[in-house]
């Protein structure tokens, strides 16, 4: 697909990467770093699942396993001063943005050393210094926030972009439509990333949305759109590069529908398969595990060999084990913390 065709408003890019997809503009270190990041997220989430089962993590815990290429590919195309918001399935985005595994794991454990000092938990990972502005728990509720951040960027005549991650179930929500309409109406530098993992909890896309192709919703707002293969980190990265360019240079918002798949249940308390999807379906999707897809490509291109992959994996496992030990040993917030951060002046106004 040519850049020109891509710039045509309302023209979706072809999903998938059937054609050869050159990586010549990416150095080998970058390509390996993406594999490392995806492995880190995978091992972090596996460890979080384990800690949840042991009762060390409470509440809800929504794992990102299967969708790693989306966070890693999109965040690789962003700049350090861009703004990011995400839904409650945001551990992967936080890590890909540069949050330490220790700060993230300690937050899941509710500890004072967590990124949100133990007051946010799994659904509210936040690090303002990284522009990582949540971690939001109401489906669709954070989409207008991103429009507001993009508004602030335009207001201050900056060249940042504001990026929002949400699942495909959020596009049936009024907040989504209101937010996208204003972003397009006011020509704001926003990118709306719909991670279409096929299921809103246990409800399949076609049981919730009157149209199957979610990117078409952008047509209502004369907004740029693309459909992207979310299991191939390079394809994700390239689509995001185009969206970032449109936003940063032309103040054109984009709706990216990134098709992916959730390998786990909706949250740790939900089954992986059962009434709403079959074991066979999950197994079929696992064949396009984003880590497998990228590993195979890097091996084929001579960027890394099996030994190198094992070494990266061992490295991230050790990082995650360290984070786990750190979080487990870390202190709970002081009892007095109950009464801080309610207002600027503390617990009472």
């Amino acid at each position, binding site marked *: 697909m040519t850049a020109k065709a891509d710039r045509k408003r309302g023209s979706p890019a072809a999903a998938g990467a059937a054609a050869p997809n050159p990586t010549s503009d990416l150095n080998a270190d970058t390509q390996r770093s993406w594999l490392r990041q995806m492995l880190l997220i995978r091992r972090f989430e596996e460890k979080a699942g384990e800690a949840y089962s042991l009762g060390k993590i409470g509440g809800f815990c929504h794992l990102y396993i299967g969708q790693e290429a989306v966070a890693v590919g999109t965040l690789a195309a962003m700049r350090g001063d861009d*703004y990011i*918001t995400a839904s409650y399935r945001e551990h992967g985005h936080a890590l890909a943005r540069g949050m330490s595994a220790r700060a993230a794991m300690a937050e899941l454990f509710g500890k004072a050393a*967590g*990124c*949100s*000092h*133990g*007051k*946010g938990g799994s659904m*509210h990972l*936040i*690090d*303002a210094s990284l522009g990582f*502005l*949540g*971690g*939001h*728990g*109401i489906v669709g*509720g*954070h*989409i*207008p*926030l*991103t*429009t*507001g*951040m993009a*508004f*602030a960027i*335009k*207001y201050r005549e900056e060249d940042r972009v*504001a990026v929002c991650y949400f699942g495909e179930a959020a596009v049936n929500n*009024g*907040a989504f*439509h*209101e*937010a996208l*309409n*204003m972003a397009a*109406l006011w020509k704001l530098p926003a990118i709306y990333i719909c991670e279409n993992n096929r299921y809103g909890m246990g409800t399949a896309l076609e049981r919730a949305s009157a149209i199957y192709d979610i990117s078409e919703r952008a047509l209502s707002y004369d907004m740029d759109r693309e459909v992207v293969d979310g299991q191939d980190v390079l394809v994700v990265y390239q689509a995001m590069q185009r969206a970032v360019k449109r936003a940063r240079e032309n103040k054109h918002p984009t709706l990216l529908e990134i098709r992916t798949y959730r390998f786990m249940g909706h949250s740790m308390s939900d089954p992986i398969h059962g009434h709403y999807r079959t074991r066979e379906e999950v197994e079929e999707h696992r064949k396009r595990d984003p880590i497998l897809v990228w590993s195979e490509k890097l091996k084929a291109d001579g960027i890394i060999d099996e030994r190198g992959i094992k070494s990266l994996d061992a490295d991230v496992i050790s990082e995650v084990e360290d984070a786990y030990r750190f979080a487990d040993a870390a202190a709970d917030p002081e009892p007095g913390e109950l009464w*801080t*951060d*309610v*207002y*600027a002046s503390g617990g*009472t*106004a």
Partner: protein
Amino acid sequence: MAVITYRDALNQAIREEMRLDPSVFLMGEEVGVYQGAYKVSRGLLDEFGPMRVVDTPITELGFAGVGVGAAMVGLRPIVEFMTWNFALLAIDQVVNTAAKMRYMSGGQISVPAVFRGPGGSALQLAAQHSQAFESWYAHIPGLKVVMPATPADAKGLLKSAIRDEDPVVFIEGEMLYNTKGEVPEGEYLTPIGVADVKRAGTDVTLICHSKTVSVALKAAEQLAADGIDAEVVDLRTIRPLDHETVLASVSKTHRAVVVEEGWSFAGVGAQVVDVIQREIFDELDSPVLRVTGADVPMPYNKHLEKASKADPPKVIAAVKRVMYLES
């Protein structure tokens, strides 16, 4: 001192704060080209331009979220709701985001936003346009709720609200917009969280806010003719509630009636009564009574509407009961 309307006092507050701080902007339905549904924003578009006086689509949830998002990254939005009835569509953004970002981020993120517009009833606007929601917002830790009754307080409190680092729900009165009063020009700030004795008295305390301040003052005048000297305490801020002023007054008069426009169940008055009985039970010479809106959706018919509202005769009747002059 200039005598201006409540509407113009609000306009003055917004204009002055926008001149002082380039991060302050106003957004909402009809605030720009139309000059404001209630003309509070008259002239602001001309002075500040469309980037700072932003006309929005009719999309309360969306533009409230835009305001909160902009506040999260350092702007100071004034989000105008045409009325608080419509703001129910936006309550998710006010309650789930604005009120909670500071806490759930462990203190990293502030939301210095003002949500403002008229609340309560006007005249014959019927059930969906005549509701007082202050107790809903006052229930939420993380929010401040401010309700000025006079032009001077409207200006001073709105300026304070715009400068506040926390989200402020600022509820005006549609029936107050044309009321006039003396308003200091230029820098004039009324602190949030401080009630005001609008009339000093010794026999009974009338605790009120927003539109019911004038109801209480009228009742006090008529009571004076009967030899009853009522003190009128205007709460001005619902949250944080000024316990000190309320308790000092009731400790002096030993009797109190709380007057509010909203419904009685879990209303603002319920909180005030709780504070009084908890803190100064022994000072009371009679149970504290409440005068509220009737516990029904607002009827359209003007006689029924009048019957539903808190008015001076109802306040006078309640005062006579707390003074054991009538049963």
